[in-house]
């Protein structure tokens, strides 16, 4: 049973906030059930079964657009609903080398790129939602998000490209930095603030810390 979007997001945000005691007190037995922040392929797939397709026909048709049109259609958060998709025809026709080159161009097109199950507005699994929430906490809103549920070839292609078995995946400045678990650890230990700074992005949490210290 799927919970309403808002309740779901709140739950995940609460879990993100609440996980710190568990991480910081290694000697203490955690009372809460540990968050499954990393899972193998089978487990992850089991946890993240997509719900029935709710895409409009138009968006499905978009999957057959040419590469140039797909590039123009690449969506950013705040400019429209849904993630971008790779052109199916292009991917199908390309060799494995060609696909790697396309994905290489895709992850380098924006400073922050995420591959999700679902969209930032409607993540379809808890781990993808956690990534969205972490980016929101830092005030990162202008990032490229790709919904792998819309393209099975992208879903497997990005795993081969990164040699990482699970979705979501996060790329900063064209470099793969990890999935939900690593992004969460970077959020906890302050590395994410530093990485964003290198990209010229000022984390909203810096302001929060300044206010706290006043």
């Amino acid at each position, binding site marked *: *049973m*799927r*919970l309403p979007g808002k309740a*779901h997001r709140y*739950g*995940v945000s609460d*879990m993100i906030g609440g996980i710190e005691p568990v991480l910081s007190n*290694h000697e203490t*037995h955690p*009372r*809460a*059930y*540990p968050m*499954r*922040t*990393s*899972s*193998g392929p*089978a*487990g992850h797939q*089991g*946890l*993240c079964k997509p*719900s029935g397709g709710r895409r409009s026909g138009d968006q499905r048709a978009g999957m057959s657009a040419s590469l140039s049109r797909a590039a123009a259609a690449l969506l950013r958060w705040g400019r429209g609903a849904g993630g971008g998709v790779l052109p199916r025809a292009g991917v199908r026709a390309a060799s494995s080398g060609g696909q790697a080159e396309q994905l290489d161009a895709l992850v380098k097109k924006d400073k922050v790129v995420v591959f999700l199950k679902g969209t930032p507005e409607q993540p*379809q*699994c*808890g781990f993808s*939602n956690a990534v969205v929430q972490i980016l929101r906490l830092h005030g990162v809103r202008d990032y490229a998000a790709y919904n792998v549920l819309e393209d099975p070839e992208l879903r497997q292609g990005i795993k081969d490209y990164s*040699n*990482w*078995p699970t979705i979501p995946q996060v790329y900063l400045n064209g470099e*793969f*930095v*990890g999935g939900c*678990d*690593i992004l969460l*650890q*970077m959020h906890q230990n302050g*590395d994410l603030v530093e990485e964003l700074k290198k990209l010229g992005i000022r984390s909203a949490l810096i302001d929060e810390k300044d206010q706290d210290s006043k």
Partner: protein
Amino acid sequence: MAAWGPVAAMPLLRGSRGLPLWHCAHRMFASQTEGELKVTQVLKEKFPRATAIQVTDISGGCGAMYEIKIESEEFKAKRMVQQHQMVNQALKEEIKGMHGLRIFTSVPKC
């Protein structure tokens, strides 16, 4: 998705509330489970220079979910994702039987 809901969490919470002290005491005195020993052994073989390896079964005993903390100089000057990939690769066979895996890597301080 259900795993994230409060309804799904209720059974776990009830169990935790029911036997919190016993559960903690049990973990404190129990020796490592067979799965923990196996994973620890593999990591020791793959990371012979590791200064600390800690493997904990966090699945409540069914042996499907583990938390791994490993400290080794082999992680030096590597990104966290690369460190995790090294551990994933080392446990390639064991991971197939796992439902989940949490990895914490660190470099020993000189």
